[in-house]
């Protein structure tokens, strides 16, 4: 059976219960035209045809969409454009840099950790770090070579009374911090939702007063892999002695909030750190971070190997 036929039957399967008189040939013809002739991506073709059915045959959109995607484990997500459901815990929320994104971050189950995006258009209630949810009908996607899941209008997020275990994949990495990413240093967060303000504006709540916070998004490189890490105020204070209060003093003295960022750059960039944390894709969730120095015995090992 061709892909067009498979997809056609999937659509027919979904509208089976409804009193709709549409011929298989008709759907198949459109499907073939879209994917074989015009080379439209499969997911687009399916979307186009379902919209057509809603418009022309009065098929209920809810019925069409409200199908149960198979419940999968995160480790099973390997291909883009698959509809799946997941039981997962919100591991970390990030600041979204785009007004189109309501929430973005990492979710995890026993088998792995994956990035998720909740589109603003999906109009979902906000999820919270540390809580577990059933993510119904989300779509897998590949972004910058990594898998992620997208929550859209037809998805559903239901909080579950279950504490999902995260993978016991605590790792330890010794690497150098080779770059700071945007919105690091002394930042302001929205009092409503905690998002980082960009030029005093929250993506969701507009121009707000906000509160100060200290954080660094950094790239850690050990010569074999790169990891993105986020350091919070506690981590930063532990490494540099600069806590939020000290940072505010530095900003005040220099009449420049960027002075804090420069100071942190000068103290942390190019240095080696030992980081303990959970690995999820290219992200490393920091549990402990400290400066790393070599010991004489390590040098002796190498000299022995050379002897």
């Amino acid at each position, binding site marked *: 059976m061709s892909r067009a036929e498979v997809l056609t039957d999937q659509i027919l399967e979904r509208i089976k219960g409804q009193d709709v008189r549409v011929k298989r040939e008709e759907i198949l013809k459109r499907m073939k035209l879209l994917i074989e002739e015009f080379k439209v991506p499969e997911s687009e073709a399916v979307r186009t045809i379902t919209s057509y059915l809603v418009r022309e045959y009065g098929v209920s959109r809810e019925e069409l969409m409200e199908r149960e995607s198979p419940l999968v484990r995160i480790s099973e997500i390997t291909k883009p454009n698959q509809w799946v459901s997941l039981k997962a815990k919100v591991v970390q929320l990030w600041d979204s840099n785009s007004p189109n994104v309501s929430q973005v971050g990492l979710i995890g189950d026993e088998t792995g950790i994956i990035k998720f995006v909740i589109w603003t258009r999906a109009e979902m209630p906000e999820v919270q770090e540390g809580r577990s949810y059933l993510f119904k009908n989300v779509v897998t996607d590949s972004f910058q070579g990594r898998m992620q899941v997208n929550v859209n209008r037809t998805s559903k997020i239901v909080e579950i009374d279950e504490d999902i275990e995260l993978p016991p994949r605590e790792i330890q990495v010794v690497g150098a911090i080779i770059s700071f990413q945007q919105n690091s240093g002394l930042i302001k967060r929205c009092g409503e939702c905690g998002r980082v303000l960009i030029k005093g504006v929250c993506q969701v709540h507009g121009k707000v007063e906000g509160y100060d916070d200290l954080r660094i998004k950094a*790239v850690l490189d050990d010569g074999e*892999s790169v990891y993105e890490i986020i350091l919070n105020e506690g981590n930063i204070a532990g490494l540099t002695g600069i806590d939020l209060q000290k940072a505010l003093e530095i900003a005040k003295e220099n009449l420049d909030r960027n002075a804090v960022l420069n100071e942190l750059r000068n103290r942390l960039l*190019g240095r080696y750190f030992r980081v303990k944390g959970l690995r999820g894709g290219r992200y490393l969730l920091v549990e402990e971070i400290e400066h790393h120095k070599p010991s004489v015995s390590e040098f002796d090992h190498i000299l022995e190997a050379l002897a």
Partner: protein
Amino acid sequence: MIRRREVAKRVFAYELVRSTYQIEDESQPKYVLTPTGERANRIFSVAVLLDKEEIGADTNFWRLRLADPTGTFFATVGRFQPEALEVIGEINVPELIALVGKIRVFEGTSRKLVSIRPEMISAVDLSVRDYWVLETAKRTLERIKIMEERGNEDAELAWRVYNPDLEEYREMVRKAVTTVKEDVEVMERFEEEEEEIDFTGFELEEEEFDLTDLLEE
């Protein structure tokens, strides 16, 4: 599609300046193949900035000469590397720095010149150099092992392109590790003593990075 960030490889200066073979492939970022079979687009190095020279007055284009315990190499910084440029403007030479940058190979009339385009430069202390040497030594020995086993395609290619004398690179590692080990020993002893002895009233001289044997080369 946006590519994944390239890992910054660890390569000693001695090997770096001999890495003149570029792997040309339109579908990939530009890689340089090193004589021990490392495929590198970006490097991380800890080296002494020996000299900075502005090419023409107020051009904000600097040529840097750097040295690690195995040799010297060049880097250029211009306005397309604003963060590195800012640091270079203020730094006094000589200074120990950590740098991350892209590798560039320039074709001269008689030979090829390897140069680095730094994206990040930061003044660091000796312990960073010590660990960098250790880490780079480990990575280099791993590569030498793969070369001996002809363990992957890049190793095969490196044999064809460079036909390297691996003993030469082992010697490079030995030299770098030996030089730095003494410093680490001094530091460890210093730290042990620090716990017992009260240093108030003493003026402790800071250790200098010994450059004499590098400059002679």
